[in-house]
């Protein structure tokens, strides 16, 4: 199992087991991780699954595609390490991934 750590805006962290092939957003929703809304259900059209990827992981993830970059324009407080968690697919290579959720979604 791949482990993913979610840290909320206040600094509280939750570690969950993620299923390979699912997305980071789905993992959060299934485990009731607060701070991710995912209004559009993962179709990259709401920007309410916004997370900040831990600096240590920034270079290890596949880059955001053009559609995700476009959608990120709508997220709140976008930073260089911002990603939409519905566009990150879980694999064994992501074991130990740490993401932080923003102050608010949208």
């Amino acid at each position, binding site marked *: 199992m791949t482990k993913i750590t979610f840290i909320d805006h206040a600094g509280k962290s939750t570690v969950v087991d993620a299923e390979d092939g699912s997305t980071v957003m789905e993992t959060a929703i299934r485990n009731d991780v607060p701070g991710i809304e995912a209004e559009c259900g993962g179709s990259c059209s709401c920007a309410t699954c916004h997370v900040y990827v831990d600096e240590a992981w920034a270079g290890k993830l596949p880059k955001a595609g053009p559609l995700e970059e476009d959608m990120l324009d709508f997220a709140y407080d*976008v930073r260089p390490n911002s990603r939409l968690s519905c566009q990150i697919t879980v694999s064994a290579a992501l074991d130990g991934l740490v993401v932080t959720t923003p102050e608010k979604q949208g």
Partner: protein
Amino acid sequence: MTEHIKTDAVIIGAGPVGLFAVFELGLLDIKAHLIDILDRAGGQCAELYPEKPIYDIPGFPEVSGQGLVDNLMKQIEPFNPQFHFSEMVTSVENTGTAEAPSFIVKTDNDKVFECKVVLIAAGGGSFQPKKPPIAGIEAYEGKSVYYAVRKMEAFRGKKVMIVGGGDSALDWTLNLHPLAERITLVHRRDEFRAAPHSVNAMRELVAAGKMDLMIGQVMEVKGANGELSHAVVRGNDKTSMDVACTAMLPFFGLTMKLGPIAEWGLHLHENLVPVDTEKFETSTPGIFAVGDINTYPGKLKLILSGFHEVALAAQKAHRYVYPNKKLTFQYTTSSTSLQKKLGVG
């Protein structure tokens, strides 16, 4: 000047469910006016995913968000619905009784509707502009920071900072450019979602030194008494600079906010309006809630469910609008009277 309108039904929200309500009400001879804060019909389908395919509309193996809206508009045409766009419903006042309801519905555009039934088809709430994460920006809103352009003249001679990379940001950059003293466009990356021809036109202005383009984020606003003087822009290289600006237009898309519905005296449950599943009526007789805005045991936020809800709500609405008329159940395939209403008989 206040405009008074008398009608049978007012539908709040012109999303897919509000649109189909026109049809179901229309078959029962109930005339409707629709009000939406957006400047066109379609709600989430048109605003959030016009080009995405929907696969679970019965009878349509695949239809795009906008395609569904266009078809609904065509389907309700025979009933001549009256649309009031770019208007927010601010209040719904109950002026009747439980047996004979009547309501006064008001908008922020000085319109007053007198009607017998109200259908709240407000979806996830009214679409409102997203605000950027800039501390203290509220103090400038409406005075020198605007989320929409109502009058272009207001920007004449101003140093205008436009923030964003979509069509609104680029269109207003180009439209206000001849009026403004200077335009600075700020976007977080050097790529734009806007139509390529407007991006090219913007780049030409930048190349000719006629406007400025900055890649980065607005971190802070400075000024006094609501009047901006500077904005602090941080570039992606992390250096910050003060940029003179006397008006700002942030365009970060829209978000859905419940809005004034909370003040209409209805029972609410987690920002949703509870209804029964026989008539989809709220705690106030004569006010119905249909589509994404309502809640009941087993509710699914599907367009399909909203369509079913309006058909049933219309039956009860008929009792209020025509208390002395008996309602007989009819099919559109076989009823000549329904076909006459649809203009196909």
